[in-house]
């Protein structure tokens, strides 16, 4: 990639056309130097743009009405042919993985792609990244020990290049620290990770440690990762719902909630997924960022910035180098 990255954006989000996705691209065009390639129906896209402040020099449209090819597939074709450098989509993660697998080549040596999830966690020291990465969270359900090691390498490259963590600490999600309770895959992965010279492996991580600041990258099989990521997500929204319901039930609680509101807002701001925008699918030769289905324009803006950053920071090249040898990344 030379010069300014071009990010393909599926403006349908996997379903009907979404004006907020076009708004995100318009905002990107007026506030950054990133170019966006909007993939979707041309008429509706321009109708939204006409009502916005935008910079046409940084926006192009890949017309795709979805009859012959989905916007996701069309956007990935643009990425694979070099018209765009990366893609962002709010379509379902599974649809994104399937489309990526069809359109993009894996980095040489990568056995399986990994879907990452980024989530807020406690920090242990000032300046520590507020977000940790969990992978795989559902690109595939099972993984072998060498595949888990590859996930760790890919996550470490991403953390090093994008999150700027010099020596990301890697953990293996497990039932406990007692190796007796490990199955063959976990046991082999634990041994291989500990022996790998290119990784800072801190050992097994239990569920309750996910949101602590002990590790930066947690690797696991897709089934376990998907459940863990869903649980973190569900808990956050459940807590908000519980607090809201409590406030509605009793006046005293409402007053209490009011008094705590500033703190709650601060916590919400710190944990707001819109700050990181999206999560990468790692292992392909091109960058792909998935967003939540309900991601709003702000989340999309940050996801596009994240994609551009991953392109500029050479995540795919870093993964290839990491897989070649311990000093490669």
């Amino acid at each position, binding site marked *: 990639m030379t010069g300014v990255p071009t990010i393909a954006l599926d403006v349908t989000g996997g379903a009907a056309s979404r004006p907020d996705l076009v708004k995100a691209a318009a905002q990107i065009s007026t506030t950054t130097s990133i170019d966006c390639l909007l993939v979707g129906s041309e008429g509706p896209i321009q109708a939204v743009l*006409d009502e916005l402040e935008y910079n046409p*020099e*940084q926006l*192009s449209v890949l017309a795709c009405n979805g009859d012959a090819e989905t916007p996701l597939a069309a956007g990935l074709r643009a990425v694979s042919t070099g018209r765009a450098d990366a893609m962002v989509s709010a379509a379902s993660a599974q649809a994104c993985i399937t489309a990526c697998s069809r359109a993009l080549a894996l980095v040489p040596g990568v056995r399986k792609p990994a879907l990452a999830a980024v989530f807020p966690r406690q920090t242990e020291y000032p300046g520590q990244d507020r977000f940790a990465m969990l992978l795989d969270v559902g690109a595939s359900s099972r993984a072998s020990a060498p595949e888990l090691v590859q996930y760790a390498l890919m996550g470490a490259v991403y953390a090093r290049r994008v999150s700027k963590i010099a020596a990301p600490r890697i953990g293996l999600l497990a039932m406990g620290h007692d190796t007796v309770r490990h199955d063959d895959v976990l046991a082999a992965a634990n041994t291989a990770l500990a022996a790998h010279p290119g990784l800072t492996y801190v050992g097994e991580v239990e569920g309750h440690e996910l949101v602590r600041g002990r590790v930066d990258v947690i690797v696991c099989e897709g089934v376990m990762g998907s459940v863990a990521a869903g649980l973190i997500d569900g808990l956050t929204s459940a807590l908000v719902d519980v607090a809201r319901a409590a406030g509605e039930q009793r006046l005293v609680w409402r007053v209490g909630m009011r008094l705590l509101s500033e703190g709650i807002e601060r916590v919400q701001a710190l944990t707001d997924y819109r700050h990181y925008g999206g999560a990468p699918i790692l292992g392909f030769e091109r960058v792909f960022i998935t967003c939540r289905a309900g991601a709003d324009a702000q989340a999309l803006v940050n996801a596009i910035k994240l994609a551009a950053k991953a392109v500029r920071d050479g995540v795919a090249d870093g993964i290839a180098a990491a897989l070649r040898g311990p000093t490669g990344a």
Partner: protein
Amino acid sequence: MAGTGLAWRSSSRPLLCRWDLDKTYLRSEFDTLRQLWRTAWERGEDKVAMPGVPEVVKALKTAADRHGAPIATYFVSASPPQIGKAIRDKLALDGVPYDGITFKNQLEHLKRGKFRNLREHVGFKLGELLRGRRLVSGAADELLFGDDWESDPLTYSLYADVVAGVLPAEGLGTLLRRIGVDPLVVPQLVALAAEVRPGGRVERIFINLARRSPPASLRVFGPRLAPTFNYFQTALVLGGMGHLDPPDVAAVGDALVRQHGYSGRRLANSLEDLVRRGLLTPHVARRVTSALRRAQLLVPADRPRALERLRDWGRDIRLRRRPASGVPALDYARIFEAFPNLARTRATEGKP
């Protein structure tokens, strides 16, 4: 009103190009008193032109001369004549050919204590446009160039409607009073409007979207007004109208690439934006694209797929069917509704 091709315009009528200066030709920054003070003391070499604009002015003249068509270029500025030397120096430095330039005598307003007139430009600009019209043949075509910072779309539209003969002098007077033009000036403007000889027309009003106003916000000014985001887009529309040949358009693109850091990708994006907004037909876009490729400003592209060609063909047909002239008077009540800051007084019942 998209151009139908890049053939030189068939009209042999003289062409009058009138340009606003600040934020249209010059990248003027006077949003704060400090900037205003600095602007007042700038020398010609300190002033910065909008990217590509000198090339557009020059290309219009070169193309007209090439085809033996009469053309005149005038600048109208709401800046005081005291900065005239710096501006003339700047235009000379840019090598821009022009036939005249007028400034707003702000000192006179100060002397008369007419402080409101310092910021009221509609009356001043309309007066200058109408006076300028008296000097040319009735059949001259005009191109007006302004920006979206103040009242250029309104001033130019009023003028265009007067020239087209669809806005009677009395109606103009009512509108000017509503806009808040100096009551002493309104009768003069109405008299000037009454003198406009029939047969001319304002072919296009170009508004440089210096503030990045959403294009849809200017739709109330009708299809005669072309909002453009950069001067490559302006050149493309001029090419589509037959005022520039493809190499002239490519020359503007080349200047943007060589002097202002534009990439071929950004030129292509600007072109595609115009096609999507219906300001340029795919046919013209293809012809200009060929010229840009010959100039090595764009990389060769894949041949468009059958579906894309079919879509472009349909778009060409649709845009060619649009009336290119005979635009009715604008609905000024709607314009004031959309831009309440342009009107100072409420409309009198039953009046425009």
